[in-house]
């Protein structure tokens, strides 16, 4: 058995096509490596080469386009096949690793992936991953919320896929309730919100309006979480993955196959000098770190408790007196030594487990000292 503690978690993203899942994953992880590099308590690593290569590819794609100032809102192509990202969160100076996986998938699968096809089978795999996640992130298209106009308000819910998101959240919440010993968290993350928040260089401040609209449109989803997994933490955190772009206009145009027969087309320009200024990702990272480490701590405490029982049991067995002659025999044939040896090894495991729990506590305390930004809100 590997005596080193292994903690593995999943982080799921829930959003229809073209909202910003792939961009968010790439920015979160790139930002994570930069941010956490400055922090003394934890750091973030890619767990394998495919993850490293995939992140590198997306990063080069986005930063290249921004440098060239020709930021078409669509530098990141739509995802056509799912892929997995594997990361490691390491507590500095401690022999402690937390692994977490993120899944990227074609957003439209959320709304059905070709019944009876191979895509549907693959989507079932993705759904299982999402339902099994410790943390759910729900990226939301802010432009749709803020610039769709009153006359199209009735189309919003279907363009935001609220129904499908609610279904997936319900499945997740039920799962979480069964594991109520484990912390659970869902984070609503409006993206593409550079234009609405003053802290990213916009002249207007619509932070309150944006939050109200999220709470309004996703009220059913919020209720689902409250009913099915009341212990889950619910957070709200708007995120800029580029930061240096500005919405110029958003127009509804006719589109076959889209709800209401139309779709909203945004146009952007790059704010010079076209350098990425991410916002909100540091808070998201801190949230994730805290949540995962807290989950690990809970798990480690349970392991410590059961190892303590085991250690106590094997120690009392090792020292058990069984009568004069039998004790002589046990000493003579080495059985007594064997039992003591087993007890010592169980005690060592217990001590290691205690140590791990303590380390996790220490890291959590260090993280708790981090201040969260003004963008983060509690919705529960």
């Amino acid at each position: 058995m590997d005596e080193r503690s292994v903690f593995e978690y999943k982080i799921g993203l829930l959003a229809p096509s073209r909202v910003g899942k792939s961009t968010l994953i790439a920015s979160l992880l790139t930002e994570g490596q930069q941010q956490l590099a400055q922090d003394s308590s934890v750091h973030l690593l890619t767990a394998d080469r495919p993850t490293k290569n995939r992140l590198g590819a997306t990063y080069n794609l986005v930063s290249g386009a921004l440098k060239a100032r020709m930021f078409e809102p669509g530098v990141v192509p739509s995802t056509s096949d799912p892929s997995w990202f594997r990361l490691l969160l390491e507590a500095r100076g401690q022999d402690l690793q937390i692994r977490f996986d993120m899944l990227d998938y074609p957003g439209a699968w959320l709304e059905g992936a070709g019944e009876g096809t191979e895509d549907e089978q693959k989507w079932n795999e993705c759904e299982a991953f999402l339902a099994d996640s410790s943390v759910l992130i729900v990226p939301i298209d802010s432009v749709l919320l803020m610039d769709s106009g009153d006359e199209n308000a009735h189309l919003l819910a279907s363009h935001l896929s609220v129904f499908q998101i609610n279904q997936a959240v319900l499945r997740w919440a039920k799962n979480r309730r069964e594991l109520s010993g484990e912390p659970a968290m869902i984070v609503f993350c409006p993206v593409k919100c550079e234009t609405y928040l003053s802290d990213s260089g916009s002249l207007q401040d619509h932070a309150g309006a944006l939050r109200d609209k999220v709470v309004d449109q996703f009220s059913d989803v919020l209720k689902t979480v409250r009913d099915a997994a009341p212990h889950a933490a619910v957070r709200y955190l708007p995120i800029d993955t580029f930061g240096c772009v500005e919405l110029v206009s958003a127009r509804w145009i006719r589109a076959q196959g889209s709800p209401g027969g139309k779709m909203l087309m945004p146009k952007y320009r790059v704010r010079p000098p076209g350098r990425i200024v991410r916002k909100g990702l540091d808070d998201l990272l801190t949230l994730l770190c805290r949540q995962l480490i807290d989950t690990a701590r809970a798990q480690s405490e349970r392991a410590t408790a059961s190892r303590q029982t085991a250690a106590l049991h094997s120690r009392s067995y090792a020292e058990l007196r069984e009568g004069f002659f039998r004790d002589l025999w046990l000493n003579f044939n080495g059985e007594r030594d064997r039992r003591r040896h087993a007890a010592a090894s169980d005690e060592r495991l217990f001590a290691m487990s205690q140590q791990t729990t303590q380390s996790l506590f220490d890291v959590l305390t260090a993280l708790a000292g981090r201040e969260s930004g003004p963008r983060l809100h509690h919705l529960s």
Partner: protein
Amino acid sequence: MHVYLRTRGAPRKLDYAFLGAAPGSRWWDTYSELTATERPCLLAVTSKDRWRVLISGVPSARTDSVGTLVYYTLVLDGSPCPSGTTGTGQDRATVLALASRWLDDITRHPEGRGVLSELLDSLCSSAEVDRLLAARNSELTAERAELTTRLATALASLSPVPSAQDTGGPSPVLLAERWIAGRTAPGADAAFLARLSSLLSGEDGQAHLLNLVSSAEDITTLPEKSGPLAVLIEGGMVGDSAMPAEALPGLTSEVVTSAPKARWRAAVVPTVLTALILLLVGLALIAGNWT
């Protein structure tokens, strides 16, 4: 030969899907750690008398609801025909021409925009793509079949890119069973196409153009299949498209097969020896008792 074409429509909901029939299996998922189908790549595998080819990341001129460029994925499969025979030999020529055009398009334009983009865009207007994707799979079957026929005809009309006059001799490494090389390394594309040709003729093996690979170390996760292997590094976002050719080691499973036997022997010898000694000691004791 079957051909399948995947792309997306403009509206958010019309995500990537096959315009006509879909292939029976998502066999390319096996390679998802090594290549992103969003950007130029090519996969080719032959096993059990069946070849499969995927060409993905072919840019279209169409854009989606947020202005992103849209791409195509072409999936082809068929039964090999030995070289020299006629009939389905046409398939091999078609796929080879297609692959050579694709490599050439990528060389001329970093995004791979070129002959293939134009060919696929000319098949289907933006409105027609949206209409096909918006309908259920069971609907518009006649249109779908007709599109597939047009696609097959268009592909068959492709002529291969005339091979460049070799300036220097290609690296001898490219004659090895298993190799990896940058896409623009001297002679690599020709060697790649030659390998593809033998796959299409029924030889088991693999030939891939991968865009998430930068060195031999990256392809250790490649599913182990017997037969030759050729890997081209695409080099657009990850890796160096000019990386010199490198020979790859043989399959580890071939090396490993003798190991379990050795381990088995290592365990058995001492056990047998111990048993013999115990037997002798026992015999001596018994003999001692009797005398």
